[in-house]
C-alpha cells in the first residue's frame, strides 16, 4: 500500500515504464451561453482531466544528472519529478526506483512561519523521511552549513528569504539520499552560498548520487547535468545532451524557479486544530 515502492535490485536508479497520467486541471468556463456566462461571473471553475503523460518510458542510471526541461509549460516537469519520487502514482504503467528519491519541490512552501527554525528543520526532515534521531544527529551540520547559529530559535517568519532557501536546501541535503528530484532548488542562495552548494552537489554526483533537475537556468544545467530530457505533448521529445536540448527550446526560456512564499496556513503540525468541535 505504500505509495513509494523501492526495488533494490533494479539496474537503473529510476525507471519509467510506459507511464500514462491524467491530471485534473481547473479551467475557467468558456462559451457564450447564459449558463456559462453566469458561471464565469461567479468565478466558478470546472475540472477537466487532461493528459499529462501518454506512454512515457525512460531509464535514469545511477550517478546521472538529468536536466528535465518542458518544451512549453512548466507544470509538467513538477509532475515528472513527483512521479519519479513516488508522490504521484501513474494511471497506467510503473515507475521503479532503486532508492528513495527525495523530492525538493515547492521548497518555500515547506517552511511554516509560525514555527521556530529548529521546529521547521524537524518538520521538513520528517517529511523528507528522516527520523527524529537522524535529524538530531545532523542538526549541527545543518546549522553550520546554512549559517543558522543565531536564527535557530527565532521564528521562521523573521528569516530573510535568502535564509529560508538555505534552510530547505540544507535539510534536504542532510537526508543523505541516493537520488534527488529538485525543482529550482539545486543551487540556491547568494554568491557565497552558491559556492557551498556547487561543491556539495558536485561531490555527491561524483559519489554516484542521481539528480533529476528542473527549473534551473541554462548555466546551471550546462555545468551540472550530464543528460537532458525535453518533455512535450505527454512524451519525451528529446533525450540527449544539454546542448541539444537548449538548442531545441532556446536558452532564454529556462529561468531559475524562484517562488518566495512562506506558509502561514495549515501545515503538518496543526492538522487537528478544531478538535473541540467534535460532537
Amino acid at each position: 500500500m505504500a505509495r513509494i515502492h523501492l526495488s533494490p535490485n533494479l539496474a537503473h536508479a529510476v525507471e519509467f515504464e510506459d507511464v500514462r497520467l491524467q491530471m485534473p486541471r481547473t479551467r475557467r468556463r468558456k462559451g457564450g451561453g447564459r449558463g456559462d456566462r453566469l458561471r464565469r461571473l461567479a468565478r466558478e471553475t470546472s475540472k477537466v482531466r487532461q493528459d499529462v503523460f501518454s506512454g512515457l518510458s525512460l531509464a535514469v542510471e545511477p550517478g546521472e544528472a538529468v536536466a528535465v526541461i518542458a518544451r512549453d509549460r512548466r507544470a509538467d516537469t513538477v509532475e515528472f519529478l513527483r512521479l519519479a519520487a513516488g508522490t504521484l502514482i501513474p494511471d497506467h504503467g510503473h515507475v521503479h526506483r532503486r532508492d528513495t528519491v527525495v523530492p525538493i519541490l515547492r521548497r518555500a512552501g515547506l517552511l511554516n512561519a509560525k514555527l521556530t527554525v529548529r521546529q521547521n528543520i524537524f518538520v521538513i526532515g520528517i517529511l523528507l523521511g528522516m527520523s527524529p534521531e537522524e535529524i538530531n544527529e545532523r542538526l549541527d551540520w545543518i546549522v553550520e552549513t546554512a549559517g543558522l547559529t543565531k536564527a535557530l530559535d527565532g521564528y521562521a517568519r523573521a528569516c530573510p528569504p535568502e535564509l529560508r532557501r538555505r534552510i530547505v536546501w540544507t535539510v534536504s541535503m542532510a537526508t543523505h539520499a541516493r537520488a534527488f528530484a529538485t525543482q529550482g532548488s539545486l543551487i540556491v542562495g547568494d554568491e557565497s552560498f552558491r559556492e557551498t552548494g556547487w561543491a556539495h552537489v558536485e561531490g555527491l554526483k561524483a559519489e554516484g548520487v542521481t539528480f533529476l533537475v528542473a527549473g534551473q537556468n541554462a548555466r546551471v544545467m550546462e555545468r551540472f547535468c550530464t543528460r537532458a530530457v525535453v518533455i512535450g505533448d505527454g512524451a519525451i521529445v528529446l533525450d540527449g545532451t544539454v546542448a541539444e536540448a537548449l538548442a531545441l527550446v532556446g536558452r532564454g526560456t529556462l529561468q531559475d524557479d524562484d517562488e518566495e512564499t512562506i506558509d502561514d496556513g495549515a501545515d503538518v503540525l496543526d492538522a487537528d486544530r478544531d478538535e473541540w468541535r467534535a460532537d
Partner: protein
Amino acid sequence: MLRVSIWRSRQALFLLVRRDLSQKYRKLKLGYLWAILEPLGMSVTMWFVFEILLGGRDMGQQPYYLFLTVAILPWWWFTSGISSSTRALVGFSRTLPVSVLPTQFSVVRVLITRTFDFLFSLPLILFAMLVTWTFPGINIGFFLLAFGIQLVLMYGLSMLVASVSVLVPDFARIVRIVLRAAFYLSPVLYSLALVPEGARSAAALNPLAGILTLYRVGWWPQEHVPMVGYVISFGVAAVCLVAGIITFRRLEHRILKEA
C-alpha cells in the same frame, strides 16, 4: 507493506502525536483536565436528564451514572476520531507532493492522538465507580477486547472517511449527520436488552452495539448478548476494516493528484 511503511516512520509519528497532545492542552488554563471535563459534562447532563428529570424509566442497568460513563467515553473516542479523520488528509494535502512519508501517515497520526485522549479520560470511569461504589468482576477483561476491536473498526472507518473526504468535500457533513444518528442508534444511553426482540438482529448490525456491550459486561455480566450478536457486530467491524483499506488503496492515486 502498509505495516512496514508506517512502522518505518514510527519515530516521526510519535514525535508528532506527542506534539499534538501537548499543543492541545498547553494553551488551556486547565490543561489536561479538559480531557476529562468534556466527557464528564456530557455524562452528567445525560444522567441528569434521564435519571432525575425523566426519573424512574428503566434505561439500563443500575447505577445508571456508571452505566452511562462506561459507554460515553468510548463513544466520545469514536465520534471525535471519525470526525477529525475527515480533515486528516485534507489538512495535509499541501505536504503530500513533497513528502516521502506514507499517504496514510496523517490518518494514523490523528487516530493515535485520539486514542491517547481516550486513555487519558479513563480515570472518569474510576471516578464513577467510586461515586457509585460499584466494582467490576472478572469479566473486566472484555474491556480490553472491546478496546482492540474498536481500534480496528476506527482504523478502517478513518481510512474510508479520510480518503473520500478529499475527493468529495460534502462527505464531511454527511459523516457528521451519520455520527449524530449513530449516537442514538447505538446503545450508549440504553441497554441493548431493551431493544425489542424483532429489532435486535438489526441492532447487532451496528458494530458499536457489540463493542459497547463488551465494555459493560465487566460490571454487568447480564448485559452479555447471545454469541450470534457479537459475531454479526464484529463481522461488520471487519468488513469496515477491509472496506476502508480497499477504498484507500483505490483512491490513493486520485488523492495524490488533488494535492
